[in-house]
């Protein structure tokens, strides 16, 4: 089993490397100026039922959802089948400089109503982010990066009123699960990418900004449905279009 797995991993790796080489060679000319990639991500098929969450173990949490019961957020579908919380990033074609550029803004990952807001947070490697709490109950924030990713997990408590925890991730990792052990239903994701990225809004729309002109492979990642890719060419100062469709499981 193990050997078979390794072997197939090796083949996949070889294919990816080959593809990379081809792509890089293909990228001789780049236009000046930065454009963007916009589009939407849709779900084809019936949206799966998201189970309700029983928060009765912590009355504070339960009280935050008296009007509308909390549900799992693995697959959230908005208007016209738009998929929420899909991360879009450029998986191939970025120059080293563009890939290593780190945005200066600081996304935050809030604990609110004993849920993570956002459920999926995308950040650049080495980009600072904040973990905040809006709750009057203690959480512990516990990201679990994979052992070989080079990212290091930690586990910190955040009682009510605690100051934000500021941190960053060193390496690209898609994706790091985050959990709260005190509230076992709480799980979210930190998606660590290199280069420009976007996360779809409630209706599945996105815009990846600050993309230098060039030809790219854009990958869309959804926590339950996996990934989709699309080839996109961005002209200087222009908005390129890319749409994705995931098939419901």
């Amino acid at each position, binding site marked *: 089993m*193990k050997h078979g*797995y*390794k072997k197939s*991993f090796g083949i996949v790796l070889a294919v990816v490397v080959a593809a990379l080489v081809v792509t890089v060679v293909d990228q001789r000319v780049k236009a000046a100026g930065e454009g963007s990639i916009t589009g939407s991500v849709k779900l084809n098929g019936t949206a799966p039922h998201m*189970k309700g*969450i*029983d928060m009765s*173990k*912590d*009355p504070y949490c339960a009280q935050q959802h008296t009007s509308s019961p909390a549900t*799992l957020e*693995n697959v959230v579908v908005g208007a016209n089948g738009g998929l929420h919380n899909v991360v879009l990033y450029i998986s191939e074609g970025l120059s080293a400089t563009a890939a290593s550029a780190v945005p200066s803004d600081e996304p935050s990952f809030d604990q609110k109503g004993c849920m993570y807001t956002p459920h999926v947070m995308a950040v650049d490697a080495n980009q600072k982010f904040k973990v905040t709490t809006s709750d009057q*109950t*203690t959480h*512990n*924030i*516990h990201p*679990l990066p*994979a*052992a*070989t*990713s*080079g990212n*290091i*997990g*930690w*586990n*910190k*408590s*955040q*009682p009510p009123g*605690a*100051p934000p*925890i500021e941190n960053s991730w060193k390496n690209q*990792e*898609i*994706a*790091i*699960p985050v*959990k709260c*052990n*005190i*509230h*076992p*239903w709480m*799980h979210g994701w930190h998606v660590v990418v290199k280069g420009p990225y976007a996360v779809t809004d409630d209706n599945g729309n996105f815009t990846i900004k600050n993309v230098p002109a060039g030809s790219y492979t854009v990958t869309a990642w959804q*926590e*339950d449905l996996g990934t989709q890719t699309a080839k996109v060419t961005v002209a200087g100062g222009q908005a390129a279009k890319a749409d994705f469709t995931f098939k419901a499981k």
Partner: protein
Amino acid sequence: MNSRLPQMTYAAVIAGVFAFPALAQAQITEYQQDQWLHTAAITSHVGNVTGDGSGAEERYRRYCQVCHGKMGDGNGESAQWFEPPLYPKPRDFTLGVFKCRSTPTGTLPTDEDLYNTIGRGMDRSNMPPWNTFSEQTRADLVAWIKHYSPRWQTEKAGPPIEIPAEPEVTAERVKAGQEVYSRVQCWKCHGVTGNANGPSASTLTDDPGHPILPYNFHEGRPKCGNSDTELYKIFMTGLDGTPMPSFSDNIKPDEAWDLVFFLRTLQSYPSKAKEIAEQLHLKPLNPDGSLPK
């Protein structure tokens, strides 16, 4: 019993979701570990003893491998029989994640931390105290287990947390410690009386997803030692790989000592703090975790 079912479902969902990224990662190979063994990082320094990893293989095989496995991945032949939470699974050294540290959460432990763990053992697990070993053997084994994880190749041990000198235990400090216990909500897992029966206690899982029990202050020693300083370190560094987080952002060093004193009052062991609590007729927290009137 029924009330446990929903949590079981969540645990299954979470485990399923979390399994995906783990699979996407390359595995550590024995060849890599062998390369790491011969790097400068694979020594240890404890006091004036220098541990040599390359000489420890036979002792690892003799004492450790049956649980921790040939590759240090915690998959020795006995591991399959340990059923968490009553018998926790053996530590997976390839992760480079350790419970008992003097260093902040997310950092590697010091050599001395690992050395102490070997000698102290892990209560309520199958890890016995290997305190009959010579200092040299323990130091050699510390170096040896460091060759299993790539973390030791790229990182250094974290800076040990600063621990101010232990103050005198007073009634005020015991009461202040109870306030901390209430404020940072230790009771969510450990229970308002320290009986490990807090509302979240039954739902806890460790990083690999195995069920795990919070420490019951009335039964035995904490996992990482029972001295005042060790108690201090447990909640200020967190037990990485378990649900126990670090509270260092939320508890000031002086308050931390208050909490240590209050924790002593929950334990069955005699202590000065416990005497003080008895004199005070200190009431336990209310069932909702608030302070007693």
